């Protein structure tokens, strides 16, 4: 049996399970469509939320980012889990008590304004859309690798599966498929890590291996992290446990990621599916626990993969490299340029060159000569795949690889059995599908509920509303698939990375003040949202696209972390403006009072 057969079997079985669940639990009413009928158990909702929250990017790239940047990557680890604490303690219990099905609903009612609702709908659609494009692309890439089809066909297959159970099943269908998807993801992530931990450190638990000793070599035993630091400094990288980012930047980026997480609409709506406020709290515990299983494993996988990569490839003659290296060369995820002509792969960091760069070739991504090019332009002296890019001779580094391959290549590098790799493939697809489905639901409800029913056509019946939602999810999916096939230049790709900053500077403060202050009024909230988000967008656009130079950074903060400053501006402007404008009407003040009383939450979808 070959690897391909195993991949087909694992993915086929997992798909059969998802679709079976979706058909069994498809939604019949708006209530079931938006909130799964409000009766999902805390445990199941915890798993589903964890699957929703962890996207293909988290699953595939996070360990790779940790492997490459060591301590610096902690900003993602802490940012995304710490944000969840904010979300649980400050947001969801109150929003659940408020009892409407969507986030724009809360903003619209709390700030008694259609304009505020409209702004919130636009923000929600923008955030979800940028996200879902990345997911569709991820599904497409995995499928194309698996079945040897083009990325467009892969995206279309993924899109039709998501539509099948998200569009038809609604929240109820999604919730139970996400439970199954979480199980697949958790096994796919931890099993390879356990195997590798045993091989490298002799510990069964990867987290203990990370802080244990490196036992895989015949040399005297050294602590694993010290081994890693030695490798890094020897090759000219920053020490693994020290990192390069300034404290100020670490602080701001982590804060922006945390607050952005607490403002993400597709995570908040998940908590509208449970029965009452007490169940929300319990469900949040389960969710973070399930997320932590994967987030605590990622640093271990990253560190193991880095040691493995260097041990297996650095100073190895190309003729002796393992077979997987050629496979990754073929898919364009690894590349080798023999700069010194010795036939061996050398891997070096920026400290080995005077210019402080470690780029293998000129340009950001490898490009290859066409298949009709003469053979001596495609295949090098040692049998390697040649690039069309010119070599960058200012430094000695010869090995290029994308961040994404760390997780995918890890089982290959450790020589694990084929079924582990097949399981990993199934896990990747589960991660992408579950997040895409959750996002799709928020998109479709934002359009059908907040836009059609609340703003354009208030007399919609229940049944019409669900039909609109299904239609909207179909339309949204087509747009997402289109952008998945044709990624819209570097602009969107960069914007996705900043979506958290935008959420932190717009949604987070507005929701927070709306919950905890009775005095905050419509004028303050709208002025705050607009000033926060426009400052953040302006800063990002100036430095990313208009050629602003790093010397001009405000207090040395990179655009990645500026959402935190935008958030402070939002808070400041909101309070300032509301102090000079009339207080909100009495019924709104009563409502704020009421959401702090935890009992009597009722059904989330009562309108």
């Amino acid at each position, binding site marked *: 049996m070959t690897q391909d057969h195993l991949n087909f079997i694992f993915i086929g079985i997992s798909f059969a399970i998802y679709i079976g669940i979706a058909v069994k639990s498809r939604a019949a009413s708006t209530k079931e469509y938006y909130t799964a009928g409000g009766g999902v158990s805390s445990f199941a909702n915890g798993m589903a939320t964890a699957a929703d929250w962890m996207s293909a990017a988290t699953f595939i790239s996070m360990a790779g980012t*940790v492997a490459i940047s060591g*301590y610096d990557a*902690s900003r993602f*680890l*802490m940012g995304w*889990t*710490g944000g*969840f*604490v*904010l979300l*649980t*303690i*400050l947001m969801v*219990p109150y929003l659940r008590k408020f009892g409407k099905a969507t986030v724009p609903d809360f903003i619209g009612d709390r700030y008694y304004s259609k304009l505020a609702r409209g702004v919130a709908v636009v923000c929600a659609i923008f955030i979800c859309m940028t996200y879902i494009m990345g997911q569709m692309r991820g599904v497409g890439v995995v499928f194309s690798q698996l079945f040897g089809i083009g990325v467009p066909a892969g995206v279309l297959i993924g899109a039709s599966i998501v539509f099948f159970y998200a569009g038809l099943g609604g929240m109820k269908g999604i919730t139970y498929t996400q439970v199954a998807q979480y199980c697949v993801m958790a096994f796919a992530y931890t099993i390879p890590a356990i195997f590798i931990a045993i091989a490298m450190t002799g510990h069964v638990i990867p*987290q*203990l291996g*990370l*802080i*244990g*000793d490196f036992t895989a070599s015949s040399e005297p035993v050294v*602590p*694993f*992290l*010290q081994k890693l630091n030695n490798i890094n400094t020897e090759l000219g990288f920053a020490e693994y*446990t020290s990192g390069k980012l300034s*404290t100020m930047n*670490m*602080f701001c980026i*982590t*804060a922006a990621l*945390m607050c952005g997480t607490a403002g993400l609409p597709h995570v908040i709506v998940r908590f509208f599916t449970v029965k*009452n*406020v*007490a169940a929300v*709290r*319990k469900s*949040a*515990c389960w969710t*973070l*626990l399930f997320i*932590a299983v994967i*987030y*605590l494993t990622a*640093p271990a996988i990253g560190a193991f993969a880095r040691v493995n990569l260097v041990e297996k490839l650095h100073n190895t003659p190309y003729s002796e490299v393992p077979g997987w290296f050629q496979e990754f060369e073929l898919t364009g995820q690894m590349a080798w340029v023999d700069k010194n002509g010795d036939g061996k792969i050398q891997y070096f960091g920026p400290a080995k060159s005077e210019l402080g760069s470690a780029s293998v070739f000129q340009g950001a991504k490898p490009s290859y000569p066409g298949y009709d090019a003469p053979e001596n332009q495609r295949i090098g002296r040692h049998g390697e795949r040649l690039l069309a890019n010119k070599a960058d001779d200012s430094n000695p580094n010869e090995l290029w690889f994308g961040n994404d391959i760390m997780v995918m290549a890890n089982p290959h590098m450790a020589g694990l059995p084929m079924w582990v790799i097949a399981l990993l493939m199934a896990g990747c697809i589960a991660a992408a599908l579950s997040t895409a489905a959750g996002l799709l639901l928020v998109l479709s409800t934002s359009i059908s509920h907040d836009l059609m029913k609340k703003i354009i056509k208030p007399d919609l019946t229940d049944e019409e509303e669900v039909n609109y939602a299904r239609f909207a999810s179909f339309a949204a999916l087509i747009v997402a698939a289109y952008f998945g096939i044709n990624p819209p230049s570097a602009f969107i790709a960069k914007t996705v990375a900043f979506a958290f900053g935008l959420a932190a500077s717009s949604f987070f403060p507005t929701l927070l003040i709306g919950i905890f202050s009775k005095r905050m009024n419509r004028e303050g909230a709208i002025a705050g949202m607009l000033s926060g988000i426009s400052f953040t967008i302006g800063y990002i656009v100036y430095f990313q696209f208009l050629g602003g130079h790093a010397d001009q950074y405000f207090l040395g903060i990179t655009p990645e972390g500026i959402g935190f400053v935008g958030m402070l501006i939002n808070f400041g402007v909101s309070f300032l403006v509301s102090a000079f404008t009339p207080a909100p009407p009495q019924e709104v003040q009563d409502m704020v*009072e009421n959401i*702090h*009383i*935890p*009992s*009597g939450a009722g059904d989330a979808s009562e309108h």
Partner: protein
Amino acid sequence: MENNHPRAHRRACLRIVIALLSIWFFVSFGCAILFRDWLDANAPQVGSAPFGFWMAQQGAIICFVLLLIVYAFLMNRLDAKHGYTEAK
């Protein structure tokens, strides 16, 4: 329902939120970012990992999970005290 005082409940609830968020800030921004260099040099190592580094990659996340468990426990107890507990 005789202990039903929204104001007292709200104040007690805010106390819990502020206490937990202080811990939250201390373990993540404090230990793992602001005081990391000092902790790396002076605090005992966790296994073979420097303390600040370990907090940033593992410890903070473990603390977050514990915080949420404590939060659920304290809030449910507070709700019960004020008569807000709902029948299952």
